[in-house]
């Protein structure tokens, strides 16, 4: 196993990315938006394409498109009776079409499944600091978001604004997907968000234990996945996801219902 700088940068950025993604993922699963996350992750494509054309960092391109889609979803959901998955599905098809036109073929595949770009020191700093911010904001949002999910009317009657916590949540989710693009690709980022939470849910007995286990599992599967990918020379994305699947299978043995 080669402990070169590139490996360390990937490992560290990966761990922090998963820290933020797996905490958000707990709420994604609870809000029944698991597939929404998956779909949202494709929205990044045209952003990546444009960024490549304009020669800027693809994370920024992806982030702009993801944030716009997240805000658009929230806005349209507020104005119509459409469920979020249908709205994001609409964004997704539009952006996928744009993405296929904008992103060169070989890079299209890699931006979906990761391993496209080398992680530089600057990237690692960006990913780590943004992940820490997302993680903290999500923690601060947790109570409001949960009450908004269980009982929006109770939340409003207590003087809170559940629609704003939902918007904040969507934007954080979009940002976290953007962060994962270089590392494990946009498709697999959706999976990294969900997998720790579904495993954790199987044996959680409270909200707190659910969130803690989700984060711990996220960090563990990312570490294992990245180390294995380095040893066998896979790309880290699929390897992280497969280790997540193993955890999920194991969690089925401990299911409390």
């Amino acid at each position: 196993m080669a402990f070169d700088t590139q490996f360390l940068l990937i490992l560290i950025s990966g761990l922090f990315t998963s820290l933020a993604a797996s905490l958000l993922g707990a709420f994604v699963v609870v809000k029944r938006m698991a597939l929404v996350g998956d779909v949202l992750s494709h929205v990044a494509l045209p952003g990546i394409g444009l960024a490549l054309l304009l020669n800027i960092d693809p994370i920024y391109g992806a982030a702009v498109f993801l944030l716009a889609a997240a805000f658009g979803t929230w806005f349209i959901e507020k104005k119509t009776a459409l469920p979020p998955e249908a709205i994001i599905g609409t964004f997704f098809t539009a952006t996928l079409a744009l993405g296929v036109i904008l992103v060169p073929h070989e890079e299209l595949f890699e931006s979906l499944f990761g391993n496209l770009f080398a992680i530089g020191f600057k990237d690692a700093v960006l990913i780590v600091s943004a992940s820490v911010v997302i993680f903290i904001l999500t923690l601060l949002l947790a109570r409001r978001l949960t009450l908004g999910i269980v009982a929006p009317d109770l939340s409003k009657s207590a003087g809170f604004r559940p629609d704003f916590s939902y918007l904040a949540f969507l934007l954080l989710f979009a940002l976290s997907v953007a962060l994962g693009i270089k590392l494990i690709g946009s498709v697999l980022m959706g999976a990294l968000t969900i997998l720790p939470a579904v495993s954790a849910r199987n044996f959680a007995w409270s909200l707190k234990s659910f969130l803690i286990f989700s984060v711990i599992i996220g960090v563990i599967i990312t570490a294992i996945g990245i180390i294995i990918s380095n040893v066998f020379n896979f790309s880290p994305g699929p390897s992280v996801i497969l280790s997540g699947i193993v955890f999920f299978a194991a969690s089925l043995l401990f299911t409390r219902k």
Partner: protein
Amino acid sequence: MPARWARRRCFWNNESRIMNSGNHKNHNHAKTEHANPILDVRDLSVSFGKDEVLKGISFQVKEGDFLAIIGPNGAGKTVLFRALMNLIPYDGEVKWRANVKIGYVPQKLMEKAELPLTVREFFVLKSKNLFFKDKQIVNSIFHELKSVDIGADILDRQLINLSKGQLQRVLISWAILGHPEVLLFDEPTAGIDIAGEESVYNMLHKLQDERGMTVIMISHDLNVVYRYANNVLCLNKERLCYGEPSQALTNEQIKRLYGESAFYHHLH
């Protein structure tokens, strides 16, 4: 059945008669001389698109009142509650006394089986604090659970594992946490056994006596209305009757409100 609680406030009788004859202005004037209402609703209308769900509803609630709101399914009872709490846009006037604190008991929570929330965590969600422990809430949880007659061992159970009756009590104690002056109580249509229901009303009454709380309740049980409410509002998109139950709730009114079949059902 004698309306024990309603009788206590028999001065309502005359007023409600005036009310039924449709003479709003005199009525309101007479009442404000007794006490400032805690809630004054005038000409409240709510529309969803082209559907007018509530039309020109007016009523007043005074401190310590127990107002029952009754009406068939789809009459707009819950919509009225949501308008009172300013959760939906409406026309007309909803005037609460300044700085009044309102507790709300919804019919049910969304069935979110994927959320492993415990009763304790559910209480903490009411905290204004985003992250840190809220000592005030933690301390009052026990006190509130006691007032709804449930033991503290329920705190570590998950919300989704509670029976309907237990959940209702938890929702009530959640609502009265922080001692609101007014309780809006949306009674579940079904699913709680009679014995359980009985004690919920007694409990509400105890709370009302101890804390001087005002209760506005959506009810599906006319017996409850006669027994506990000192004022009733019959609703079917518009106001069909309003006043002291034994006066306002005539057989005619009940028939108008629920139709023949329900009328017989309720009297048996």
